């Protein structure tokens, strides 16, 4: 391989047919006359455009397609020509320079075209040079050249992550792999499971119990996840009434008075709350509004009645000190109950974190736009992160997340997108350059993703996500499958 040209931060490298380099791979340009080395990443490849080549290809095609013939080419010009025809120009982005063994993200140095040697650099060599902080490795998969690639859990800790890609590209698979790996490392992971696919992580593909099966808790809102009003607290309840059930300010004030009254009387139950609203002396409109919300709360079945046991997140976490995967199954819950459950959970978790009753948690939110109000995302992205909720959004609709979320994201795992509008949106919002994203992401095969951000020290890496030994249940239920 040879350096062919440079425009801005784009380096062109000439590769002969035998020199196989794939999109996303890293190359090292070593200049014999300098101590510097340049790290570049291949983002696209094109044929070498040589004058007169087009007419030669057309001529060959005519010769081969129309008539049989014999040729005598003693100097084998045709083989040289074939070599040139199949030569490729690798379009690379300069990612940084290694000088005196130290990497810096800059491209202010131009290597010699004559003396430079271009060779592939493995991801291990690259990241050994770049240096990554942390010691808890999560095996992510294989790089483009087939080498194992792992990320460090510390680079996810305290960060906002996004996993996005088109349908059936492997997002959920990566999310499950990351969440189970974090649990194995002793983390507490909450998952909003919209398709009921995480519950199977307790089983391996061969039917045996998985390593995290004893640390998995599945909570179904309205069934195994119910709260008593005392545990919920006034703050969380007003948050639900205000943000999820749109209770007007005047009615909310009356509700707070009722709540405080019941709390004082030590009668804070759903039954007493209903009684108190009906007996309360207030404007009829206010009472109607309160009753409507009360019945909505009742129908959600999220609140304990008649001696039912309330769930306590701090107890769930305390029971599993070596980490836990707490799966909140939202699959079979009506939309309004789903929103109440999520709102309640998030405000309760913030409350617990604020009072340091639980350690920081990781939250995996699949298709968050189905249950999170938009204003809440900003909360998650900015405020909740400081309390210790480290979110990973998983979506196949990149426009469902605001561009602000992308800009705040520390790590993005991009799976295949072919839609130009989606690629445009993502390329504008992420830290990597648009050309790299558009060229590579469009060509990614299923289960391969491009990792961007802190996990890869801001050096985009294309990874084929490893197969999981766990039983992953994310497949679509099919009509014709019944017949098999």
């Amino acid at each position, binding site marked *: 391989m040879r350096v062919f040209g440079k425009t801005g931060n784009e380096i062109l490298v000439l590769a002969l047919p035998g020199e196989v380099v794939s999109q996303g791979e890293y190359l090292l340009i070593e200049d014999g006359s300098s101590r510097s080395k340049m790290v570049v990443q291949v983002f696209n490849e094109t044929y070498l455009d040589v004058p007169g080549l087009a007419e030669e290809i057309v*001529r060959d095609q005519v010769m081969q397609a129309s008539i049989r*013939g*014999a040729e005598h080419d*003693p*100097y084998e*010009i045709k083989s*040289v*020509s074939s070599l040139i025809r199949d030569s490729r120009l690798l379009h690379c982005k300069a990612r940084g320079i290694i000088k005196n063994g130290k990497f810096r993200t800059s491209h202010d140095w131009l290597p010699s075209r004559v003396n430079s040697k271009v060779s592939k650099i493995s991801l291990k060599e690259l990241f050994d040079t770049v240096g990554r902080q942390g010691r808890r490795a999560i095996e992510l998969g294989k790089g483009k050249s087939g080498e194992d690639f792992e990320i460090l859990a510390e680079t996810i800790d305290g960060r906002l992550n996004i996993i996005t890609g088109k349908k059936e590209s492997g997002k959920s698979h990566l999310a499950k792999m990351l969440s189970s790996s974090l649990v194995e490392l002793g983390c507490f992971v909450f998952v909003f499971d919209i398709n009921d696919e995480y519950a199977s992580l307790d089983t391996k593909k061969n039917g045996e119990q998985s390593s995290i099966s004893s640390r998995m808790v599945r909570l179904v809102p309205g069934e195994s996840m119910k709260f008593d009003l005392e545990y919920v607290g006034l703050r969380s309840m007003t948050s639900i009434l205000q943000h999820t059930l749109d209770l007007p300010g005047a009615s909310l004030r009356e509700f707070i008075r009722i709540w405080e009254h019941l709390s004082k009387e030590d009668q804070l139950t759903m039954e007493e709350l209903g009684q108190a609203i009906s007996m309360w002396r207030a404007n009829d409109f206010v009472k109607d509004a309160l009753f409507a919300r009360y019945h909505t709360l009742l129908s959600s079945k999220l609140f304990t009645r008649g001696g039912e046991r309330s769930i306590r997140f701090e107890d769930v976490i305390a029971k599993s000190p070596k980490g836990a995967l707490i799966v909140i199954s939202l699959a079979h819950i009506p939309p309004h109950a789903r929103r109440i459950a999520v709102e309640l959970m998030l405000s309760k978790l913030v409350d617990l974190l604020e009072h340091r009753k639980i350690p920081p948690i990781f939250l995996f939110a699949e298709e968050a736009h189905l249950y999170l109000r938009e204003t809440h995302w900003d909360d998650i992205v900015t405020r909740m992160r400081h309390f210790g909720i480290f979110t990973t959004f998983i979506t196949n609709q990149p426009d469902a997340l605001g561009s602000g979320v992308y800009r705040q994201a520390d790590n993005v795992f991009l799976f295949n997108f072919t839609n130009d509008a989606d690629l445009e949106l993502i390329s504008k919002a992420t830290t990597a350059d648009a050309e790299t994203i558009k060229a590579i992401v469009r060509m990614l095969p299923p289960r391969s993703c491009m990792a961007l951000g802190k996990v890869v020290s801001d050096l985009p890496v294309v990874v084929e996500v490893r197969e999981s030994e766990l039983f992953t249940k994310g497949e679509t239920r099919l009509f014709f499958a019944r017949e098999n």
Partner: protein
Amino acid sequence: MLLGNMGIQLNLPFSRINLNQEQLFEELITEISKFVPQDLSNLRGRRAVYCSGGRSRQPISSLSGKNLGEPNFFSNDVTSTLVVGIDSSSLPVCDLEDGSIIAARASAVFSNNGEPMAYLRLGPYPYHVTSEFVMSKLGINKESLASSIAQDKALSQSLLRKTFERSILATLLSHLSKSIILIDGTFGYGFSSLEKLEEKRLLGLARQKSNSILGFTKVSRIRELWDAASSLFSIKGAPFYIKPPKVDAKHSSETEIILAKFRDDGFVFRLDIPKETEINVLEKLSANDHFDRGYPDSLRLAHHFCVFTQHEDTCLKGRLGNELGLVEVPSDDQRQAILGWMWSAGRGSK
């Protein structure tokens, strides 16, 4: 005055030279006026065919309006006959102290029943063209002539290509029988008596095995033929041929020139044919080759198969450089360097 202005524009130090510019200018005008027609007004309203990119174009109607007589229409003879189109090309690769390396390539395309059947492509073969080579391989016996040919790059390139093509033609003529062999260009246009002899030999070879050689000229440089071809262009119906009145065109004494149109939507071409050629050869050719715009496909394909592309030029130089360990001496495109990109783009002959 004019020179003065030019001097100012070009920033030349004219002011330091004592030069009577006005007198010089007047004298120059007087001198030039002796042979430059001052008055072009007699051309007003004349019909003209504009050249394009320095090349003459073929008009679609005659400029002179001369009547060449009635065309001789003929029919297609579907008797299966092999038609072979031969063409060759050469490419100067590099110049050495004592000569040049020139590569030559030839191709032959075989057609029958209106369809191309097969092709042969030979080369490129690089030749070191020196005066010794011209004498020993290109058939020039006279040392001074061989030397002057070797000195003239264009001439040596042309002679090499022709010799190369003729040697392939000779082999084909001895191998094939009752075939029609088409070559690109004319007969009898050689500059040496030896070349004429060679052509005579080839025609003799063709006769022995009842082969016919036809030379196809795409655009004639002979003004009379050029104009005559235009006058035939608009005649409806084809194929036909016509024997033009005696023209001042160099050709072998054993050949004659005809103008032929093979297809109704095609052009009229000059054909150099052996004098004894029967009209039936044209009838068989018309039926056994495919014609596009009146030009035989076997010749067109042979042309495309043998020409060198710019890419092949690069490959050839690279291969020879490696193979022979040629040491490239730094060189410059003198014309480009002197005149710059703007003026070197011009195509007119200089």
